[in-house]
């Protein structure tokens, strides 16, 4: 096809602009994922995985070892771990929403001049190392830590023990309580920011219209504000839930034996047991678990971009 000169020169620039990042992503994102899948179905030969496809004695052999996948489904530990990961991620998302929505709401309704300052105050901890802040909670919740003192002093630890989120009263560390607290704390800004972005752009005249038509402020909130902020809620929830499922650092520092999450199991299989195929299998299953929310997130991102154009 003989393209007019102008079109072909346009293509050159365009190819470079799309091509460079595309190649990068294919090589460093897609390819590793494919290799991950390969490892999960490979037979290990010393330290290298055996080739999946082999040509020997005139016979083309395709070896896919599914025993790792079978093993996971059979062994109770892994099933429970996945369930636990989903459970804690869901709990974290719930608490982030509970604390974060009113927070974002009041931020968006604050005086316009102080909103940038509020935004900065929310961002500031985000820019400070998250590792250090999680470590700080270790201190706060250990014996004689400030928060531990307050909770125990108020007798709330009895209530927490009754709820089953800590095993023994007086010990708040390395429990489901400390884990969810730590994760909620860390991921709170991820919930607040998209919600704030959404709520601050809401047209207040819609609320005025609702009030004019007879709705009380409370009703208007639930029938107008909340539905309109759906996009923000979804974005925030995805930004919290998906990474939480595979969290490693926080369970490691604040969790305990009863809060085993997939991230830690995978880490142990890889670093302690050196079982790369099993670790890969765990990773693939983790991806499968989050693929639905991940697709939702992608759809949201694409729609958000479309709406802007």
């Amino acid at each position, binding site marked *: 096809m003989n393209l*007019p*000169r*102008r*079109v072909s020169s*346009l293509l050159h620039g365009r190819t470079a602009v799309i091509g460079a990042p595309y190649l990068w992503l294919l090589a460093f994102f897609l390819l590793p994922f494919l290799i991950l899948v390969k490892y999960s179905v490979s037979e290990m030969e010393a330290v290298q995985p055996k080739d999946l496809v082999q040509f020997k004695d005139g016979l083309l052999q395709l070896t896919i070892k599914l025993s790792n996948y079978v093993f996971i489904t059979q062994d109770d530990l892994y099933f429970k771990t996945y369930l636990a990961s989903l459970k804690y991620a869901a709990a974290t998302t719930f608490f982030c929403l509970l604390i974060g929505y009113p927070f974002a709401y009041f931020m968006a309704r604050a005086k316009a001049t102080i909103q940038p300052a509020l935004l900065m105050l929310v961002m500031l901890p985000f820019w400070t190392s998250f590792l250090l802040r999680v470590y700080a909670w270790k201190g706060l919740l250990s014996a004689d830590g400030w928060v531990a003192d307050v909770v125990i002093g108020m007798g709330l630890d009895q209530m927490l023990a009754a709820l089953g989120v800590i095993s023994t009263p007086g010990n708040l560390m390395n429990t489901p309580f400390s884990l969810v607290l730590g994760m909620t704390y860390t991921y709170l800004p991820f919930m607040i920011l998209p919600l704030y972005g959404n709520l601050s752009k809401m047209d207040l005249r819609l609320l005025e219209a609702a009030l004019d038509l007879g709705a009380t402020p409370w009703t208007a909130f639930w029938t107008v504000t909340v539905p309109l902020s759906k996009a923000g809620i979804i974005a925030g929830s995805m930004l919290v839930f998906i990474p939480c499922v595979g969290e490693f650092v926080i369970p490691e520092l604040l969790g305990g034996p009863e809060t085993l999450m997939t991230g830690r199991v995978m880490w142990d299989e890889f670093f302690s047991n050196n079982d790369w195929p099993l670790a890969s299998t765990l990773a693939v299953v983790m991806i499968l678990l989050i693929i639905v929310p991940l697709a939702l997130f992608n759809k949201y991102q694409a729609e958000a971009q479309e709406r802007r154009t």
Partner: protein
Amino acid sequence: MAASGADAFLRIEGLTKEFDGYKAVNNVSIDIAKGEIFALLGSSGCGKSTLLRMLAGFEEPTSGRIVLDGQDLAHVPPYKVPINMMFQSYALFPHLTVWDNIAFGLRREGMPAAGIEERVEAMLKLVQLTKFAKRKPHQLSGGQQQRVALARSLAKRPQLLLLDEPLGALDKKLREETQIELVNIIEQVGVTCVMVTHDQEEAMTMASRIAVMSEGRFLQVGAPADIYETPATRFVADFIGNVNLMDGTLDVDAEAHCEVSCADVRHYIGHGITGTRGMAVTVALRPEKIKLTREAPAQTAHNAVRGTIREMSYFGSFTVFQLVLASGAKLKVSQANTDRHPEDPLTWGDEAWARWDAWSQVVLTQ
């Protein structure tokens, strides 16, 4: 009135632009003479902006040719054509001063510094913004920004100047002044100009010829007066200004006159038309050509009708009446208020006679 093929400065031949099977511009051809101000007039979606963008080089035609002074420019990128555009949103570079904005195009050409200085100063003088050279766009008023945009688009002495809705959001007074200024500058520079607008007034006051566009096609091309007084189709008659459209049958078709009978009135028109007796036609009559009186006119058989005043809109210099006729049809009449204190002025509910002469109507067959 069209430029002849030989001296057509800008010739557009069979220009078509198709998007996914939809023809935004459909086989448009026109010759534009050097120094003309040519307007593309139509409502949004008619294809005028697409046509303009093809001239500028931002869209590639699906088929057809654009020949400017002998050169085919249909597939040349925008930075290589001797055509400059004044954008609808001005698109002044916010990070550059007025001076740098105007010099931008000259620098891209590789003009030496001395030449650039001379040209920019000349442009600033042309639009009377010499004192504002060092300011940035956000430090100017809307009218000043527009003048910078104009200066910038004229700096390279383009062979063709394109104007995209030049007078849009200005209020009436400012618009009138700017219209005159704009035309003066363009004529002073002597550049050929194609402008796009949805505003009829803008097109009629500024352009020497107008093309009325709809759905990608030219419906009629001509001088403003021609388009207004001799519309070729119902659409054009209705689009430009106000008009009364009366459907009827051609009763008499003679050499020097014809008669059309409509629901409420019989038209006697002082010229013949090509047509067959009995065919359906539409008579177009402009409101200002009608005279409104309380008393019946001398003869009421032709070109006269009685009705009741249902609506009245006072515009200061003229008043528009809406008359309801026997069949229920409405007739719009526009009367200039020449008398400061009229005796017994017509008002709502009054019965009145409307009459017009035999050369006021236009018979439309499309």
